[in-house]
């Protein structure tokens, strides 16, 4: 037989990984392999609370078939999920539930905020509704629409795949750092929450200070955001 060069270890008789005469092993970058495996087997945790969830179901069904992209299995247990898809409006009463589900998901994890309500509160600029789940959990991709079409959700998940592709293990833990002491605490600071949830459109006339409403209870602390 000829020379046994590194990477050309296989003989014609035994065969390499790509057939006789081919290399028996390949070299690659660990980042590439890890990111490839992660982005090719994203398991979504569906947190569907409203009409967006119908479009999410359509995206998982045969016509759009998210399994093509590695979302092989809807994981109804957060402990075996990689992507939290929050589809629909989230009232304040549900906020601790969403936060706990997020805290239960193992690292690495990503979050898609699907639809106008999950991203901003949408038309529900009212007393009971979370004005964007980014005040509660970190969000990677926002999908606009009311509701978004399944193509929109697929595009969002492909953007997450692209995000994973660009990650590297040296920066990974920095990117994914999470302070356990801040679990079940607001994701954003008070100023950020105020800026994110400011009144807009028709609701500008209906903030906390109009209508002769008592605001003294809130004025005691520094959190009165107009």
């Amino acid at each position, binding site marked *: 037989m000829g020379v046994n060069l590194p990477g050309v270890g296989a003989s014609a008789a035994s065969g390499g990984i790509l057939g006789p005469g081919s290399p028996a092993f390949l070299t690659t970058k660990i980042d590439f392999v890890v990111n490839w495996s992660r982005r090719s087997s994203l398991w979504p945790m569906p947190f569907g609370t409203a009409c967006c969830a119908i479009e999410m179901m359509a995206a998982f069904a045969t016509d759009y078939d998210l399994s093509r992209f590695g979302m092989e299995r809807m994981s109804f247990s957060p402990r075996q999920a990689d992507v939290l898809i929050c589809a629909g409006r989230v009232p*304040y*009463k549900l*906020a*601790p*539930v969403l*936060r706990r589900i997020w805290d239960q998901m193992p690292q690495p994890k990503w979050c898609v905020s699907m639809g106008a309500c999950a991203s901003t509160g949408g038309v529900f*600029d*009212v*007393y*009971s509704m*979370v*004005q964007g789940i980014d*005040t*509660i959990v970190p969000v990677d991709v926002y999908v606009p629409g009311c509701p978004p079409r399944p193509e929109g959700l697929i595009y969002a998940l492909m953007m997450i795949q692209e995000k994973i592709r660009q990650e590297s293990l040296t920066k990974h833990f920095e990117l994914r750092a999470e302070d356990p002491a801040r679990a*079940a*605490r*607001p994701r*954003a*600071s*008070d*100023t950020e*929450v*105020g800026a*994110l*949830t400011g*009144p807009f459109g*028709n*609701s*500008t*006339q*209906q*903030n*906390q200070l*109009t*209508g002769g*409403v*008592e*605001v003294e*209870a*809130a004025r005691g*602390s520094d*959190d*009165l*955001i107009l």
Partner: protein
Amino acid sequence: MTPPDKSGLDAIEEGPVPSAAVGPTVAGAPADPSGHPSVAALFGRFGSAVLHHGVSAGSQHVVHVEPARSLEILGWLRDDPAHRYDLLADVTAVDHGGGRPLEVVYQLWSIPHRRALRVKCLLPLDALEVDSVVGLWNAANWLEREVYDLFGITFRGHPDLRRILMPMDYAEGHPLRKDFPLRGRFSRAEQTRRALAQDLEKFYTPHDIEIGREPQQVTLPVPPASGSQGPGAES
């Protein structure tokens, strides 16, 4: 209300207009009590406790009764064989704003007589209390909790009067009242902080959560005795 020269988007820019304070009653024009047998009987039996009678939406007879005697009147409507309002379709409340009294609305339906009746109690804002009707219709249990939660009306004698829709430790008041600001009383930051600080185990025991899963006792209709050929029996 919106001035007549404003329309469409211009009117929207004005924002909501606080309701003007008007007279204490919001009842419509009185109607002929003889149009509905139960209304005529109510006037005959309870007299001055029946404050007003009107017809809404063509055929819906509305009776305003005195809150102090509402339990007695509703109990009579349920039990009297000539009326038998055995189905309580809804308990709700209306706040018309402007300092007007809150209305508690009982929507009744009589299955044997196929007849509907709407009974209302007007409660002034400084006396938001009325007798609970859970003893008459069990369906009122959660409905009265909802009215209590969203309007702050206390139901005397309710077995379990606590919030049902809003978080148990909600501190901003009763959201469906007209004086409640649309976006709540606290800032969004405070609302978010309070929401995330909710201690779910404090308000919901495992028994509460499991209660919907208790095995239901199903009573099947007794099959006809052997020998007699019932309509469903195989032959």
